[in-house]
């Protein structure tokens, strides 16, 4: 025995007796790389189906920063989610995607202001707003589910935060796809719908994904 109180000694004995060799988790960067590969495949498929105008990225001054911001937010939020799923990584990793999220939001709003009166501004009709909603929800739900399934084996202790970050990564990736497909400045209505969709995806991921991770 180890000289601990009886209960602790008994627990150590029980845990020791039930020990089985474990399959170690792959490093977090492998999970991030695989998830980003899935994002690239999905973006390529949607771009091939829906088409896009890459010229618009350089012609309109706020579109490219918005694309860079959303793509960086997706990658950094994914890094943050996979790292925070490990017990020994600092909570401060949660702040990693913040600068990219700021760039994404600021350039979306700036593009909205700069594009006021531009006839090519996106989101002036109901159909365009619905397209924005469909792409963001349609792309981010499977991406968020994939990230959470990949992370689940880590049995994250900070399950709600990890699920929230997975939702943010997915919504930002979906926004990147949307900008690639429609590289236009947005109307106030479109920015509002865009923001509401991202908020809905992040909240749903934190609630549903968090519960799924908690039960791991």
């Amino acid at each position, binding site marked *: 025995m*180890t000289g*601990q*109180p*009886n*209960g*602790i000694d*008994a*627990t*150590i*004995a*029980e*845990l*020791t*007796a*039930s*020990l*089985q*060799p*474990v*399959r*170690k*988790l792959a*490093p977090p960067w492998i999970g991030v790389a695989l998830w980003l590969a899935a994002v690239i495949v999905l973006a390529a498929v949607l771009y091939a189906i829906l088409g896009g105008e890459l010229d618009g990225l350089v012609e309109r001054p706020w579109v490219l920063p918005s694309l860079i911001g959303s793509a960086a937010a997706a990658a950094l939020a994914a890094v943050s989610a996979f790292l925070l799923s*490990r*017990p*020994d990584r600092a909570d401060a990793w949660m702040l990693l995607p913040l600068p990219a999220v700021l760039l994404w939001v600021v350039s979306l709003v700036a593009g909205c202001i700069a594009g006021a009166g531009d006839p090519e501004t996106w989101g002036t009709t109901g159909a365009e707003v619905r397209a924005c909603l469909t792409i963001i929800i349609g792309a981010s739900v499977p991406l968020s589910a994939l990230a959470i399934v990949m992370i689940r*084996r*880590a*049995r994250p*202790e900070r399950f709600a935060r990890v699920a929230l970050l997975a939702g943010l990564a997915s919504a930002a990736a979906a926004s990147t796809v949307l900008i690639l497909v429609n590289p236009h400045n947005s109307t106030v209505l479109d920015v509002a719908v865009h923001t509401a969709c991202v908020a809905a995806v992040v909240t749903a991921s934190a609630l549903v994904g968090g519960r799924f991770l908690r039960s791991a």
Partner: protein
Amino acid sequence: MIAAQGGDQVAYRALLSAAVPVVRRVARAIGVPPASVDDVVQETLLSMHRLLHTYDPARPFAPWLNAIARRRSIDMLRAQGRRSTREVHAPIAYEAHAEEEDRYVAVEMKGDAERLRPAINALPEGQREAVKLLGLDGYTLAESAELSGKTKTALKVSFHRAIKSLRARLEGSG
């Protein structure tokens, strides 16, 4: 730790034993009351077992252990905080409790007990004992462990299994 991950029981026992004083130190530093420190130790050992596969041998072990111990300590403090806000000072609770209501509750409890008795009797011996001590007689986990001669962990596991069986059985019977 690497040997433990490979299934080496001797190394694992040594690791868990060496972790105990570290966990105690973390729990005390966070402000866990002395009476609850051993509970935090038990919970941390269980978490270590559950999360064994998450340790990355390329990284130092101490931050991994400290992080788990810190979270179990915070869980304990939160649970105690919740309990203390729910608990009502006994005389106040007694005065606030209407006699009429007591009679209804007593009738209802008798009905529940009659409904539960066959289901409890059908449980395996270990689970029945856990339900009796923790659920019916109202002993604490520590007292129940002392009375039954079993560990707190074993009692907790038996109790949770019993509740699951009872729930399934009672839901099945409508």
